[in-house]
């Protein structure tokens, strides 16, 4: 230090040197440099489910999902920006970026809000490092639609939906001068964030006994790879009451029913496989399970697990009713709080293991990448995520025509499905990273055969823009 000062004194004009030292001293005394810095840079540990996402993220892939709300009138960008700047303060775990520690990744808070940009026909692309004002979610608009794209390390579908509802509520209040009642689903932005909304609920809910995570690999849907930066989206819109009626005729819920149809649709493709080995593989569908109701949590971060119901076609063919019953009984057994707790407790215990904690991040990353490649997506053939019935307060509902939920590409699986019901309509969004639309084709044809009319729309025309 002394040497440095001497060198500086020698090379610099003495008066300038003294001036710089004085300013630095004053800044330190006022504390406006370091004190504010420590206040601003709030940091959070990643929740247990989010651990894997930064590890697997790359320039070409990030676990993303998208939620949209279509309003009755065109979206005003300025009002949306204002609404966003207010909303984001209520959701501090959304205003973060991922940083590397020595042993773990962590989330570091950011000031401001992400830019509000025009929507694109190829959503859910990875957020490049340093882009989007470093935020890990995007806010987009197109005509009457407000779309949010989240990196899964921030939150899950339920947390994202809460953010979207609150953002839309703030927007509508500003745009139409209406008063929207706030509660659990639509948060009051004038309140401070509650600690239970920011907690990692996996830790509080975990038990002492973990469950074996290994599962047999499932049949994988193959096809011609799509352009690396394009994701095909096919949306089917149908009457949710009719689908619900059909599901109840089979004695199952809508999620079970849709899963059964998806399994049957994948089975149609599997039947055409040349190799017997592929024809005999089990078809399993990953269904995310919201753990908030099971464990009484109100966290806005990830708190969901999954189950992989399916059929083993090597034992014979399954009818739709048999498939639906298999899914229903499997989920009945697997989604009990005890089973769910045991499932994520294994991950929590691994995270808290002292040896695991002491391993440097770069080794953890290498091991986790290998482990995820070997055991991640290969356990299931596709994913279906149903957010259920989305309800809005009456005053808000009159301004919102439609809601959508879309899953971004998975690491290895090529076809994903997400659904939600709103205002009596069921919106089923298929997203895929292959050219062939066989799964959707089989799925919607089967729905029509069941007597459910479906209206289809897609981003297929915009595919040519990638050439």
């Amino acid at each position: 230090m002394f040497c440095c000062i001497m060198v500086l004194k020698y090379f610099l004009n003495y008066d300038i040197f003294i001036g710089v030292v004085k300013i630095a001293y004053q800044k330190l005394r006022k504390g406006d440099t370091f004190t504010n810095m420590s206040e601003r840079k709030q940091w959070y540990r990643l929740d247990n489910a989010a651990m894997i996402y930064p590890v697997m993220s790359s320039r070409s892939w990030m676990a993303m999902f998208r939620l949209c709300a279509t309003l009755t009138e065109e979206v005003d960008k300025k009002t949306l920006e204002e609404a966003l700047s207010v909303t984001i303060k209520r959701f501090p775990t959304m205003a973060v970026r991922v940083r590397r520690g020595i042993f773990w990744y962590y989330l570091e808070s950011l000031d401001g809000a992400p830019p509000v940009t025009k929507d694109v026909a190829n959503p859910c692309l990875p957020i490049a490092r340093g882009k989007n004002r470093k935020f890990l979610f995007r806010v987009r608009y197109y005509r009457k639609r407000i779309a949010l794209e989240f990196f899964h390390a921030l939150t899950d579908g339920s947390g994202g939906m809460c953010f979207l509802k609150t953002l839309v509520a703030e927007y509508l209040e500003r745009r139409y001068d209406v008063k929207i009642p706030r509660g659990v689903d639509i948060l009051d932005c004038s309140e401070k964030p509650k600690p239970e909304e920011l907690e990692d609920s996996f830790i509080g809910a975990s038990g002492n006994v973990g469950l074996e995570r290994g599962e047999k690999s499932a049949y994988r849907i193959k096809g011609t790879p799509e352009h690396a930066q394009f994701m095909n989206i096919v949306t089917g819109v149908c009457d949710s009451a009719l689908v619900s009626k059909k599901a109840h005729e089979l004695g199952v819920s809508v999620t079970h029913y849709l899963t059964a149809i998806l399994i049957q649709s994948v089975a149609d493709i599997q039947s055409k496989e040349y190799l017997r080995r592929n024809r005999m593989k089990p078809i399993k569908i990953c269904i995310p399970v919201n753990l908030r109701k099971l464990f009484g949590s109100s966290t806005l971060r990830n708190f969901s697990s999954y189950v992989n119901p399916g059929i083993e076609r090597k034992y014979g063919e399954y009818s739709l009713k048999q498939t639906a019953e298999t899914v229903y009984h499997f989920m009945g057994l697997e989604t009990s709080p005890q089973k769910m707790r045991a499932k994520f407790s294994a991950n929590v215990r691994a995270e808290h293991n002292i040896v695991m904690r002491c391993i440097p991040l770069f080794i953890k990353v290498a091991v986790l990448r290998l482990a995820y490649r070997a055991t991640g997506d290969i356990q299931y053939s596709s994913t279906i995520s149903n957010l259920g019935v989305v309800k809005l307060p009456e005053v808000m509902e009159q301004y919102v025509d439609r809601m959508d939920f879309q899953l971004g590409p998975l690491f290895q699986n090529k076809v994903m499905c997400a659904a939600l019901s709103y205002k009596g309509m069921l919106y089923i969004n298929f997203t895929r990273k292959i050219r062939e639309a066989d799964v959707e084709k089989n799925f919607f044809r089967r729905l029509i055969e069941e007597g459910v009319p479906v209206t289809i729309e897609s981003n297929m025309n915009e595919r040519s823009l990638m050439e």
Partner: protein
Amino acid sequence: MSYCVECGVKLADSEKVCPLCNTEVINPNRKGEGDQRPYPKRVEHQMTGINRVSAAQLGSVFLICPVGASLLIDFLTARWSVSWSLYVAGAGMLLFIMLLLPMMFKQSRPYLSLVLDTISVGAYLMIIAWVGGDMTWCWLFGLPIVTLTGFAAAAILAFCRAKKMKLSSKVGGCSIVLSFYILLLELSIDRAIAGKLFFWTYSPSDFYFNWSQYVVAPLLFISILCFYVSRKAGLIDEIKRRLFV
């Protein structure tokens, strides 16, 4: 609102073809473009890979720094002459030609890269020999082997890139090239030790082979086998049938 005649699904007015089966929508009652598209005519393009040319240019700049610094330090300390810094400069040149220059080509140019690689390795050996003050080993040993290796690599590359050639023929061709390479390598090494630089200075008794024949024999056997197999379509079919995975 139209229906797909193939799938039976109702299609949104924005759809010109069925997104599920690509069947064209023909509806005489439909006017114009129909409803607004659900997605904008805008796509996001992201840079997924590194721009090779820019990376090569950046790499060249980084390479110039140690080379320039070495030359300068050597030049100043050795009182206006250069010696050891030429090793660094030569290594820098080698790195540039072998690694960075191919990245600057818009198209892959393997033969040109190979020729440049061979020349640059030869040049680096000459620099080392010149700075060391003894060019003999370079003329007798270094340059012939580098040239020989360059030709062998070019021949193997030609076989590998041949489009109409069967895989078995390619393997056979590469084996023959490797056989000749090994024979000439032994010859070059032996003659270099004997101090004979040019082939015309060799006597007939110099053309004997010792260790190379143990390498060449299996290689020739492989090449004969490969060429034989490549001419027998039935045999290839039988092998494929028995060994398919």
